[in-house]
């Protein structure tokens, strides 16, 4: 799979300007080479083999019919030398017909392979796309960034999987938000308690330090959840 962070410019970078309009490029369709090419190549080669084998069988049968006609014609015109030219003309016509059939079949075969490959590329992209997007969110989660998850594009596959991911992401995000709120309240409450209890000395300094660290931690967490 391609590195999803590469497409987003890395996880650490923060976009400053307006979001650039997404441009569909042919290279973008090949997001997960291993996954997509495996399927594309398998189906394309399989179709090629079927078309090739049956095409060869068609050519072989056609050639056999032509040879039979040529042989009969040769036998008929053997006695008459004036008919030799006619026989050669017919034989040459049959041969060129058979050759034209081969070209036609090769053309159709190549067309089939090209169209099929493009179609399969788009088809597999509908699976690789959501996986790419989820991978991108996974990379953000890895550094604790739990931003908003946007829905998939219309026509994308793996909608059920994406929904499960979305629900998980939202649940983790909500829980993190809730924890942050609770810790914030605890921070306020303990600061108030500290003032009221009038703690003294080294222990108060330690508590102050711990609360300051928690405050810093919460500020960072809020930034990540934004």
């Amino acid at each position, binding site marked *: *799979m391609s590195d*999803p962070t590469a497409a987003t410019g890395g996880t650490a970078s923060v976009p400053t300007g307006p979001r650039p309009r997404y441009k569909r490029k042919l290279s973008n369709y090949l997001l*997960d080479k*291993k*996954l997509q090419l495996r*399927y594309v190549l*398998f*189906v394309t080669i399989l*179709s090629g083999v*079927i*078309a090739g084998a*049956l095409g060869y069988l*068609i050519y072989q*049968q*056609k050639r*056999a*019919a032509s040879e*039979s*006609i040529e042989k*009969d014609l040769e036998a008929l015109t053997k006695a008459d030398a004036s008919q030799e030219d006619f026989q050669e003309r017919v034989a040459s016509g049959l041969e060129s017909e058979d050759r034209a059939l081969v070209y036609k079949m090769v053309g159709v075969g190549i067309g089939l392979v090209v169209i099929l490959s493009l179609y399969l590329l788009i*088809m597999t992209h509908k699976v690789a796309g959501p*996986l790419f997007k*989820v*991978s991108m969110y*996974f*990379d953000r*989660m*890895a*550094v604790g960034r739990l931003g908003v998850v946007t829905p998939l594009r219309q026509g994308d*596959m*793996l909608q*059920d*999987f994406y929904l*499960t*991911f979305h629900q*998980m992401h939202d*649940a*983790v995000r909500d*829980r*993190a938000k809730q*924890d942050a709120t*609770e*810790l914030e309240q*605890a921070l306020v*409450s*303990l600061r108030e*308690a*500290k003032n009221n*209890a009038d*703690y003294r000395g080294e*222990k*108060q300094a*330690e*508590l102050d*330090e*711990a*609360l300051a660290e*928690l405050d810093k*931690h919460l500020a960072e*967490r809020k930034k990540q959840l934004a």
Partner: protein
Amino acid sequence: MSTPASKPAYKRSWKNLLINKRYQLRFTLFMVGLSTVLMAGLGIWVMKVANETTTVSMASVRGTPCPKVPALTEAEELPPVPMKLPSEDPAPAEPAPEPPPVPSTGIDEEPTRRVKVQIEESTMEMTPTLPKVPTDFVAKVVGHYTCEMRLAGKIDALEHGRSLILWVLIGTGLFLVLGLAVYGIKMTHKVAGPLFKVSLYLAKMKDGRFDKVWNLRKGDQLVDFYDHFKTAHSGVVQMQKDDIEKIKGVIAAAEAAGAGEHATVVELREMLKRKEKAIE
């Protein structure tokens, strides 16, 4: 016998192979459908050409001349055998014995009239005309019928060849469709399997459980995707660990300062317990 704590061995069954019906069937049916269309379309074309070839070849075979059976029309002239008996014996033929005398009725009777027939000569032939049989007659007849049978055999072989092509096409088509269906499901299972596994972990994470993430099975696809998931999982676990560390610090400091029984510290302990349980 396995202990209840040990993990039961994973059994692959056909039911388990189809874990993401929509995705797996879509890709498998596309492959199967495409192959069927190709096989059917090209197969019909093959049969059409094979029929033409068979018809042409049959016509060619039927046109092959066979040695003819020689006609038996020329008769051998034999001298006619006369009906006249040979008259080597100079003695006159013995007269036929006289019939016995009819008893007299007493009426005026006419004298009895008798006819004497003697066949001396006849043109009727006693022996039939024999056809003239050529010396190589038998060889020619055998040659003729051998040729006829050889041609009939060739025609049969052509018919058989045509049927063979048809049955080979049908057999190959069916084998291909069934084989592709099985292979397609197994192939897509290697993608659906990891997705299924990740889905299970996602459901756990949704419920606030961040268990250890195990590796994929050998041969599974989406290995890179799974690595991304593992880093995400580690990231969330790290978030919990960071929280735990800070909460522990605050609780320890509060306890040291004599505020260990404060309601907020009690709440923080509960939160700590919950978070620690989540990453067990």
